[in-house]
């Protein structure tokens, strides 16, 4: 089977006809595979998918996300993870197994408006996704600037094997934590570096689908091109 050239599609447009597998953001209609999103087609090895250029974040197991505490019950915190589903962080994750709702006060650890870097433990759609903040690089976020980009651009921001984000970090001296949900925290001791990093991230979001984006970012950061 031929690997087709990438094409721009909108919902309803036919990508291929015939014996292909319909994968992300596509659906079979008769013997045609049509796109269900605005995006770029990706046809190879007999399967068809569309890389979307818009759309929200849908929780997946093991995703790293940045969340905002919105409320809590006696046993857990409710976390806004920039998705149609709220995340749930159980008190035991922070207080440990001997958590007792009588003696342990949830708001002493995390209160409304606090930001956390968390991992999704269980994204079962019949209830709110479970989160954890016990783990390396997880936990409450005390400093930095929070930026919001479209979740469909996160993959581009990370780049192949992290190449794009590493380039931005080294070019600006900033530390950048990327949530799969489109929320990003940028910290830098130097305010110019902070600004550089933020501008680079905004540029990736704006031009995610442009071919020579890597060069444009490299130039913007003042890095020597090879």
């Amino acid at each position: 089977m031929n690997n087709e050239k990438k094409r721009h599609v909108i919902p309803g447009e036919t990508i291929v006809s015939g014996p292909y597998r319909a994968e992300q953001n596509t659906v079979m209609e008769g013997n045609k595979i049509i796109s269900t999103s605005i995006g770029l087609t990706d046809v190879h090895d007999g399967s068809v998918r569309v890389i979307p250029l818009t759309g929200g974040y849908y929780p997946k197991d093991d995703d790293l996300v940045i969340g905002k505490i919105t409320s809590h019950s006696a046993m857990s915190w409710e976390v806004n993870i920039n998705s149609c589903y709220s995340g749930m962080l159980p008190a035991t994750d922070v207080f440990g197994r001997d958590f007792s709702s009588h003696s342990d006060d949830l708001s002493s650890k995390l209160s409304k408006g606090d930001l956390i870097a968390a991992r999704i433990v269980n994204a079962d759609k019949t209830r709110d996704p479970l989160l954890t903040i016990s783990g390396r690089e997880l936990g409450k976020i005390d400093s930095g600037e929070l930026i919001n980009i479209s979740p469909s651009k996160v993959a581009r921001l990370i780049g192949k094997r992290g190449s794009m984000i590493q380039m931005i970090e080294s070019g600006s001296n900033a530390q950048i934590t990327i949530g799969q949900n489109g929320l990003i925290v940028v910290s830098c001791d130097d305010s110019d570096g902070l600004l550089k990093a933020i501008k680079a991230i905004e540029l990736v979001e704006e031009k995610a689908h442009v071919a020579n984006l890597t060069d444009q970012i490299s130039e913007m950061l003042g890095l020597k091109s090879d």
Partner: protein
Amino acid sequence: MIKMGGRDTDIVLLDENGIRCDGRKINETRKVSITAGVLKNANGSAYIEFGENKILVGVYGPRDVHPKHLSDTDTGILRCRYHMAPFSVGERKNPAPSRREIEISKVIKEALEPAVMLKQFPRTAVDVFMEVLQADGGTRCAALTGASVALADAGIPMRDLVAGCAAGKAADTVILDVNNEEDQAGQADLPIGYMPNLEKITLLQLDGLLTPDEYKKCIEIGIDGCKQVYEIQKKALQDKYFSKGDDD
């Protein structure tokens, strides 16, 4: 005073050269322009001008449903609100929703449901809000057209877009895209919503009287109008998503 079938009117709905009261031919739609992504807060949005109609559409979702009992554990739900601003019509309209707006909201929702795919978002809702800022006949078709673009802009998975256009009858002649004067003084108004790739009609209503032959002609000419409108929808999305910066 010229009797044109329908109400008595001073306006010439169709002259001897086959030209309509606004200068169009019988199978010509009004000028349509659509811009996708015009609002900052909404997840998806579109602004459409269909002749003198001006409609702003915003989409939020999928998102939480409150109160919870309205949600569905098996699928996301679609909610639509068609609303006219008080200043959108000739005589100022009370801002409270009228029965007409409630009916149109339902009809548009049912026109979009076959297109949107919400099974992958149980317990959520996708909200479509259509605000008519200026009305000039055919607002429901224009609102439906804008809503499809706004939904795609929001990234809601869809099988197809839905394009809207009305056919009708004035001066005993089947015409395409009925404007306000033709609606008031004409003989029939048939709004249509159509999925162009799947070739299905998802919105259909009739106000007026048509012979079986006229009915067939109206549907034919109306689908053709919808296809023309679809090209404008496509262009709106392509302009926003596929034309920035250097491209492949």
